């Protein structure tokens, strides 16, 4: 399946939905800093991988998919939840790449320039996340392909 950009999706998002994400993102960044100040970097670091906006994004995705189906006169409840399931599957794959991102920063930061390490870790996250997604797609494709019967 090809990766596409659908600019029209931006029109579906309301201004208060953008605001909610901004507030949640800002709040979790401040909270991670406060927790690190109170309990040390070892505990504060956990919250760098907190699913801050996943609940808000999943709820919006569910609502948008449901509304799309309802506009076409179809019940959209299941469609919305399946879309959230796909989103969660993507997040699970992305979280594996996120662990690699954190590992690179942990090991390399004390020995190299900070912007270079953050940049390299981010590139690794993108490459690894896409690779995991592609491997899963390939696995699904191969497992669904009908097996050829060989003549004896």
């Amino acid at each position, binding site marked *: 399946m090809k990766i596409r950009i*659908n600019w029209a999706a931006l029109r579906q998002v309301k201004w208060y939905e953008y605001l909610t994400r901004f507030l949640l993102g800002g709040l979790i*960044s*401040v909270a991670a*800093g406060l927790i690190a100040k109170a309990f040390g970097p070892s505990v504060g670091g956990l919250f760098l991988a907190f699913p801050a906006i996943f609940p808000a994004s999943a709820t919006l995705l569910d609502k948008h998919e449901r509304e799309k189906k309802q506009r076409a006169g179809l019940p959209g409840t299941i469609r919305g939840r399946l879309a959230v399931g796909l989103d969660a599957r*993507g997040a*699970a794959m992305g979280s594996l790449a996120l662990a690699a991102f*954190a590992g690179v920063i942990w090991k390399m930061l004390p020995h190299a320039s900070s912007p270079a390490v953050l940049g390299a870790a981010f590139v690794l996250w993108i490459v690894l996340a896409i690779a995991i997604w592609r491997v899963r797609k390939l696995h699904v494709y191969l497992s669904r392909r009908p097996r050829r019967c060989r003549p004896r």
Partner: protein
Amino acid sequence: MDWILRFLVGGTIVSLFALVADVLKPKGFAGLFGAAPSVALATLSLTLASEGKLYAAMEARSMIAGAAALFLYALGCLYLIGMKHFKAAPTTLALLSIWVVGALGLWAAFLR
């Protein structure tokens, strides 16, 4: 002032990643951005400036446990919402407890 800056930088980077996820198709691919290092990039860049490299490296080490807990959280959402069709909003919120228990459990077991 530092906290206001942290709030603004965190909010902006998280919003940008969410925007990218909005426009990407298919949805399974866009979901990767649900685990983007948005909070980490915002927080670590500011922490590096204020606390130094070793402090930030220590945070990154714990972040591995946080990412493992995020994996469990996402699998929980996939199972309960995508397969069992539970309601999205209450389920994603309730499962945050899985993340907290998972992250703190891994921290207590390996990082304490």
